[in-house]
């Protein structure tokens, strides 16, 4: 995928999935901006015409928004806290499915792994030339990377 995908494609697919799955509207943001605070991180391996992994990190506030909107509950509902990691993992899963279909087509055999999710106090992902950042009007942030050859 590293040779087939563009950051524009990655950004478009991610933004569309956020809208469709969680009704979260974002705009592209600068990848180089420093990441402050904790994050929910998730990695999903893929193999097919190319091998690699997708990595995402979301600000805790954005992860909470995903969970609340996906479950149709208020963001201050106690259940939101329990589901933030699950929500980020599911978001990555849908982004991955949409992305591989767009990049490789629907005739290619692609295997997607199960998202591995964790909460972290400080986030410092590996450098990748295929990185995009998205931000909501409220400043909640998401970054997505393609890590080639990680599968």
């Amino acid at each position, binding site marked *: 995928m590293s040779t087939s995908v563009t950051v524009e494609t990655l950004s478009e697919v991610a933004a569309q*999935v956020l809208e*469709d*799955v969680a009704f979260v509207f974002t705009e592209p943001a600068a990848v180089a901006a420093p990441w402050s605070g904790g994050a929910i991180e998730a990695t999903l391996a893929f193999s097919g015409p190319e091998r690699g992994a997708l990595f995402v990190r979301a600000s805790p506030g954005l992860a909470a928004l995903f*969970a609340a909107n*996906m*479950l*149709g509950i208020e963001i201050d509902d106690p259940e939101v806290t329990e*589901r933030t990691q*699950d*929500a980020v*993992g*599911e978001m990555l*899963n*849908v982004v*991955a*499915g*949409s992305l*591989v*279909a767009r990049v490789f087509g*629907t*005739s*290619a*055999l*692609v295997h*997607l*792994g*199960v998202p591995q999710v964790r909460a972290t106090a400080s986030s410092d992902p590996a450098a990748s030339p295929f990185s995009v950042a998205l931000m909501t009007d409220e400043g909640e942030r998401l970054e997505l990377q393609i890590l080639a050859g990680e599968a």
Partner: protein
Amino acid sequence: MSQSVLIVDDSPLMRKMLRRVFRMAELEFASIHEAGNGIEALAVFATEQVDLAFVDINMPEMNGLELIQRLAETGKLQTTKVVVISTERNEGRIDRLKRLGIHYLPKPFRPEDVCVMIDQILGESEIPR
């Protein structure tokens, strides 16, 4: 409705989302069971009558395709309608599922997509509403 439903997804959030869709659509099933992977689903099938199963594909332990294979081998697909809800887009895999009588709903889905699918299944099914 008198149907018994099984939701098979490793994501508790997705299982809750589907339950929410059923509530929003006022679909009152006789029972709703949950399983986090194919192995847990088979345990439910061993003890419960399942009329309608919503099955994810990418799951740990036993994935949805392996589960469906086991259901086909044991004749369960003759009595259970299965809807695969997945990010899977491969035409070949989807065609193979459809030849087994499996319904397919791509992620992301809207709540109304699930309702339309259930209506379609119940319309073609001999399962009593």
